[in-house]
């Protein structure tokens, strides 16, 4: 049978991408948008865990994903180097009213991340592209994961539509981000 081969297929390497350096104005502009997303995600999951509204699978999801987002954030910050944009301000009162609100907001936030990374892929150097590609599919996994927990369709479309920067910023604003 094919058990060994399947096990090999399922095995996943653990490697942190090398820090990349912004190579041009496009890279920097895109990385600043990605920084906004990763900062939002890291702050959102931290706030969710502190709010005490989560238990069971949703809590486990938030814990794991907070860890991932802080790793993503470190990579994006590293790529930007010094002179980072000012921190945005967050008001997650509505997004974290209860566990359901959290799950809906998390799905929207992860979708925005997927849309942003996919939408900006054509604006960056190959170096940034390669690292972004390692992050974006993890954001998509998060988006599907939280929907699976909630028994909602984890993959509602055959392809993920890229989002424009404006669409991404609008989505974040809805979730309580002021940048």
């Amino acid at each position, binding site marked *: *049978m*094919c058990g*060994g*081969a*399947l096990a*090999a*297929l*399922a095995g*996943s*390497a*653990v*490697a*942190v*991408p090398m820090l990349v350096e912004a190579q041009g*104005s*496009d890279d920097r*502009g*895109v990385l600043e948008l990605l920084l906004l997303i990763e900062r939002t995600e890291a702050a959102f999951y931290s706030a969710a865990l502190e709010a005490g509204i989560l238990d069971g699978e949703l809590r486990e999801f938030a814990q*794991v*994903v907070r*860890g*991932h987002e802080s*790793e*993503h954030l470190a990579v994006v910050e590293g790529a930007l180097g010094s002179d980072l944009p000012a921190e945005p301000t967050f008001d997650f009162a509505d997004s974290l009213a209860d566990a359901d609100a959290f799950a809906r907001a998390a799905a929207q936030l992860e979708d925005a991340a*997927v849309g942003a990374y*996919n*939408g900006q*892929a*054509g*604006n960056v150097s*190959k170096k940034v*592209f*390669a690292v972004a*590609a*390692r*992050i*974006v*599919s*993890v*954001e*998509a*996994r*998060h*988006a*599907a*994961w939280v929907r*699976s927990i909630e028994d909602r*369709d*984890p*993959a*509602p*479309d*055959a*392809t*993920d*539509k*890229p*989002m*424009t*920067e404006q669409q991404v910023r609008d989505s974040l604003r809805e979730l309580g981000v002021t940048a």
Partner: protein
Amino acid sequence: MTRLDPAALDRDGALEEARAKLTRTQLLGAGLTATGALLALPRRAWAAQLSKTDTDVLNYALSLEYLQAAFYTESERSKAITGKAGQAARTVGAVERAHVDAFLGLLGKKAIKRPRFDFQGVTEDKRAFLKTAVAFEDLAVAAYKGQAIRIESPAVVSAALGIHTVEARHAAWMRHLNGIQPAANAFDEPDSKQEVLKLVADTGFVVAAPRMKAKRKPGYTG
């Protein structure tokens, strides 16, 4: 700063127009909007414009989509995959078939033929089905990631990335159904074409020649 808008990739508006048209006419059912739009593109025009590299990448992607589509379709037909797993098989199967159609549409006459598959019973057992689905979806994510950077046409890159993240959603979904962590690492690693094709070959699911097992008993020849 020149920032490329995703919509700008679609220079002649064909993608957006096709997408809007498909949405309007409700052709889509299971939310196949963007792939449907790709599918609706004038096929000959696309295939003629593809570079050698892009043709190669798209055919490789097509080979993986053939594999996935056949796997889910057979699982669906076996009726052994029930409950939430059955629902997932139906939904994901429809999407993988749409991906096949999209690549066939892009490649036109340059498309490789669909191989024969023998899934060796994994489509008839829920545990084996889920384990295989997880492996296929994780593999697809790694495979698309390995190729996206090679693609030369911006529109094809955009399409491939949009499919790449859907495969990641499927991977998370199947993992959740299988009781394993949907996002095991903070970063997903790419896989080379060579690695992926070797892993696929090692499964034995792709059979080059037609199966020798007769579907019907031979007639009595006395």
